[in-house]
């Protein structure tokens, strides 16, 4: 195996600490954050992934088709 692609993950038990570090824990707990792809309200339970884009932080819910879109969006798959 020449190289390994790093998958950055947060265990659900560390999620609150990570969101706290980002200054977003209260926003999530207060229900002020939505999934970029389906508009669903993000909670600690249904949050699936987060990534930065253009100095903003994007949230994606646990719908797997939203996750697929998030991976494409984060890696800049071009719209054709």
């Amino acid at each position: 195996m020449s190289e390994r692609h790093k998958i950055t993950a947060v265990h659900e038990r560390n999620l609150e600490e990570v969101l706290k570090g980002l200054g977003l824990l209260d926003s999530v707990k207060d229900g002020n954050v939505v999934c970029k792809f389906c508009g669903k309200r993000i909670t600690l339970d249904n949050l699936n992934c987060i990534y930065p884009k253009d100095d903003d932080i994007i949230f994606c819910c646990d719908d797997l088709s939203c996750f697929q879109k998030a991976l494409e969006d984060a890696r800049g798959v071009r719209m054709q």
Partner: protein
Amino acid sequence: MTNWIDVVYISIPWAAVVSLLIYFIKNPEKAEKWYSLIAGAFSFLGLRLEKSSVARDIQSDINSFTKDYNDKNGISTLPYGVKIEWVSETTRESFVKDGKVVVKMKHHTNRARNFLYGAMDWANKGAIPEGRQFLHKKVLKALDFTLVYKLLTDKKRYDSRQLFLDEIYDKEAPEGSLVNTYSVAFNKLDENGIFMGVVLPEYTSFGKKMGNSIPNKKHFAETIGFATMLEKLSRKASGVDVSPEYKGEHINCSICLVARPDKFALQGLEPYLAYINHCVKEGVESIYVCAIGETNIANARSICNAYEKSKNLSFVSERIQPMGKNRAIVLHFRNLNV
């Protein structure tokens, strides 16, 4: 006499331990799998063991899949394995600077969902890493879906596969869509070893040829054109002629199917050699001889042997993969005149 028996009694367990160690050193992904199970059983002792169990469960299957594929093919079409990197605290500044997607993994008992997250993330980066930007979005999505589906099937992750079908595939590749058409075609070609032996290597090679150029409509059109030829080939019925050639600016290949033992018995090598020689003359860059089943494999090998001393064709690689109860072979040649 007693001493000898003692020596044997002491040696057997040590020999077993040493053999096991050698096996794990040679197959680190198998060691990871065992470690995952043990760490999972003791995960109540702490978060570190719990995280280890989750990470190694994902790493072991994806890494053994990429290893199997690259070992057999000799071409690094899937050069990346995976490593789970845990984040437990961060700041906004470093998070933005790192620019990484952070995926939430659940407790190790949610194996199906965790594995699917890992597989999707891996496919989105690990497959055709140098060429993704140059592929048409719908072709790329179909390639990713076929690869993830194959990984889940090969590794017997049937619960993850069901999640994939219900929650991703049905939504992102609905019946009648282009992504669905290509995914079905790639999956069908995989039954003959052509997906892993021809489709992925050709798109990988396409990406490598692009080098520093900027992706444009011509690139997307070429990748769609190749996928369209493959789709027609995937629907080919026995005895019906479908052109197995694609001559684009960068993708330039042909697939020679050796699928009819009756034809081979009757006409021998001649029709196959005539077709391959025609491809060489026409400037086809890569020629793949594909066969499934032992008789066809033997026939494909005899075609390969006929070009042993050829000055026009060079043998690149042989890839054999199990296909249910059968085996499939893909023999790759390069035209030395192009």
